[in-house]
């Protein structure tokens, strides 16, 4: 009995090991990749597909190269466009400035305001002519303002241009064909300090006007507005 039991234990051990080995090797063989046998036609096919793949990759590479080039082109064009936009913006800025100078757009800024009035008191025995504002007075004021660096000058709200003219037409003056009666309000935009003091110089314009019996009122303004010229033709 004892012998029989020992025998069966030994047999079980051996069976355990051999069963393990067999099933393990079976499982290993099953899971390991199988060798694929290729016959001639399959070889040919594979070669063909391989060739196709190579061709495609080559083409891909070429296309990628092309894409890269095109992208670069686009970049260049975009840069150019940006430059152009910059140029256009510059031009617009310049045009705005010129329009301001030319009076085509309303402008505002600090400056001075001079009011010229005919003298209130006119002695009977004197010539009236000597007590009213003449176009020469306005000329001198405007010239002084311009030489002192005024950026824009207006007479009674009308912009005075580089090519404007002031003419004396009897009791009124004509600026570019528009008649203005007294009092004359001359406004100038620019550095208020400079303009004010250049007008106020001793023996300067204001003094001369006063000696010509003109009533002069001079004031600095923080905020002056000038309307655009009504017509560009002027």
């Amino acid at each position: 009995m004892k012998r029989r039991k020992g025998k069966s234990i030994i047999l079980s051990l051996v069976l355990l090991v051999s069963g393990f080995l067999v099933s393990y090797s079976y499982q290993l063989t099953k899971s390991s990749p199988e060798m694929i046998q290729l016959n001639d036609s399959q070889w040919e096919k594979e070669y063909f597909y391989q060739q196709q793949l190579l061709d495609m990759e080559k083409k891909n590479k070429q296309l990628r190269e092309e894409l890269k080039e095109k992208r670069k082109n686009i970049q260049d064009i975009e840069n150019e466009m940006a430059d152009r936009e910059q140029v256009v913006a510059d031009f617009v800025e310049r045009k705005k400035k010129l329009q301001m100078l030319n009076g085509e757009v309303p402008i505002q800024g600090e400056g001075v305001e001079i009011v010229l009035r005919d003298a209130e008191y006119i002695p009977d025995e004197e010539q009236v002519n000597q007590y009213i504002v003449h176009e020469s007075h306005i000329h001198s004021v405007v010239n002084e303002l311009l030489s002192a660096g005024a950026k824009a000058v207006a007479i009674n709200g009308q912009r005075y241009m580089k090519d404007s003219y002031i003419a004396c037409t009897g009791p009124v003056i004509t600026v570019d064909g528009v008649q203005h009666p007294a009092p004359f309000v001359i406004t100038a935009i620019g550095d208020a300090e400079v303009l004010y003091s250049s007008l106020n110089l001793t023996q300067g314009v204001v003094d001369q006007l006063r000696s010509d019996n003109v009533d002069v009122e001079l004031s600095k303004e923080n905020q002056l507005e000038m309307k655009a010229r009504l017509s560009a033709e002027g």
Partner: protein
Amino acid sequence: MWLPLLFLIIGVTLGILTDIRIPDAYSDYLSIAVLAAFDTLLGGIRAQLEKNFDDTVFLTGFFFNITLAAVLAFIGVQLGVDLYLAAVFAFGVRLFRNLAMIRRMVIDQKLLTKFRKK
């Protein structure tokens, strides 16, 4: 009699469930081990039929055969000669001889019983 069967099932299950992959270089050892196991089993059956079965011989034969085959294969790998083929060959020959003997003995016994019945 149930114990060996149970162990066989356990062994097979273990082998199937084992998920360790051994490198390809060692698959030769595995095949030799399988062959040695078969050889020893068949040898045991033959010995049983010849009524000269000895469990010590059986057990030592089993492990000794496996070890020797593994050593042979190892040496073969080291020397660059396919020595494991020798083990495979030897085991194969012994396998067939054992099988033939078992067959003959079974047939003989059946024939003898048949003759005796007649």
